[in-house]
């Protein structure tokens, strides 16, 4: 035989009732609440405190001061027609620029040693006999523009000569202008 405690609502049932009373279909729990002062008291106590919690939050939170500012045009459509088209145009311009850049730094003719490129070391010379390595060396030799190669060579010979370029690449820590 069930004791009186067993017949009362569990905490979970009370929480369910408080959270979803509008959605719950009539059940035996509803009948129990109507007839059981103990459970009814527990529900009401918790319900009252939750109501006070909401009331306090509303009372002690300010109302908005500023009015909302909405952009010109129609909702949704303004973004789709204006900014979407601008985005497509931007993508097209970026793609065109990318293609031009690739064309400019594309495969160049072989450089002769008189243009400032040091002859490859012996091991690399041996590798040139291998056609695959020859292609690798060709790509590496032409990876940088001549002016870059000239800078690296001059740095190796006299580090102080290109101090300005080095400072540009790696700014000193005291420079506060860099964000």
């Amino acid at each position: 035989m069930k004791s009186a405690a067993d017949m009362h609502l569990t905490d979970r049932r009370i929480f369910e009732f408080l959270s979803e009373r509008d959605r719950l279909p009539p059940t035996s729990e509803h009948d129990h609440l109507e007839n059981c002062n103990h459970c009814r008291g527990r529900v009401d106590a918790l319900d009252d405190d939750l109501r006070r919690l909401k009331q306090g939050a509303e009372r002690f939170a300010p109302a908005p001061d500023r009015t909302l500012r909405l952009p010109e045009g129609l909702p949704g459509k303004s973004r789709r027609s204006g900014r979407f088209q601008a985005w497509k145009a931007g993508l097209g311009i970026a793609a065109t620029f990318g293609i031009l850049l690739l064309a400019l730094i594309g495969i160049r003719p072989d450089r002769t040693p008189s243009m400032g490129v040091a002859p490859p070391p012996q091991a690399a010379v041996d590798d040139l006999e291998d056609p695959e390595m020859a292609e690798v060396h060709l790509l590496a030799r032409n990876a940088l523009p001549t002016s870059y190669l000239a800078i690296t060579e001059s740095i190796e010979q006299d580090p102080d000569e290109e101090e300005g370029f080095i400072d540009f690449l790696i700014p000193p820590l005291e420079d506060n202008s860099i964000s």
Partner: protein
Amino acid sequence: MPETHHPTPASPTPDTATENTELAAAAKNGNRYAFTRLADRYHERIFKMVFYRTRSRPDAEDITQDIFLQAFRSIHRLKEPERFEGWLYRIAMNRVTDHHRKKKFRSLFSPLMENDREDIENAERPHEAAEAVDRVVQAQFWEQIQALLGQLPRMEKEVFMLRFFDDLGIKEISQVLGKSESTIKTHLYRALAKFKEASSLREFLGENLP
């Protein structure tokens, strides 16, 4: 024993819900007036929802503006107008989360930046409380709330706030957070169990709020 009457929680009246759905459908089709009316209806609710989570009036103003701006720009993507409320609150939740992430990121670079200092001062300053007693009660209220919410895991805290501060139903909360209703209920009941045991807060509420 007289029956205690409590106002119906969560959902708006059926008439209001129907009107909101019609306005959302019109706004989705580019009706600016319909969107403006929706914004008027939800402005204060969204503002308070943000304020509960930031405790800063200036931040709440800025974030609320961002929320409605985003809603204005992307309402054409709302698939079901009857889900407008859940959709709007989801935008709001994401914006608040972004705000907290950026604030945390900034705090890594400076222990207390100027903006944050102002935010703390604004949050601690009681809002529109005319009487000195009210200002004290207001400060104590938020302290007690923070003490409760601070001990809840993130999901329990959010579900609890959406249900009992923001008045959303279980279905709307599941839309906002992208979780099943059973998951929402699990978190909600855990949070309620902790609220039930928060005797200090409950005593405070009983003594200071009618």
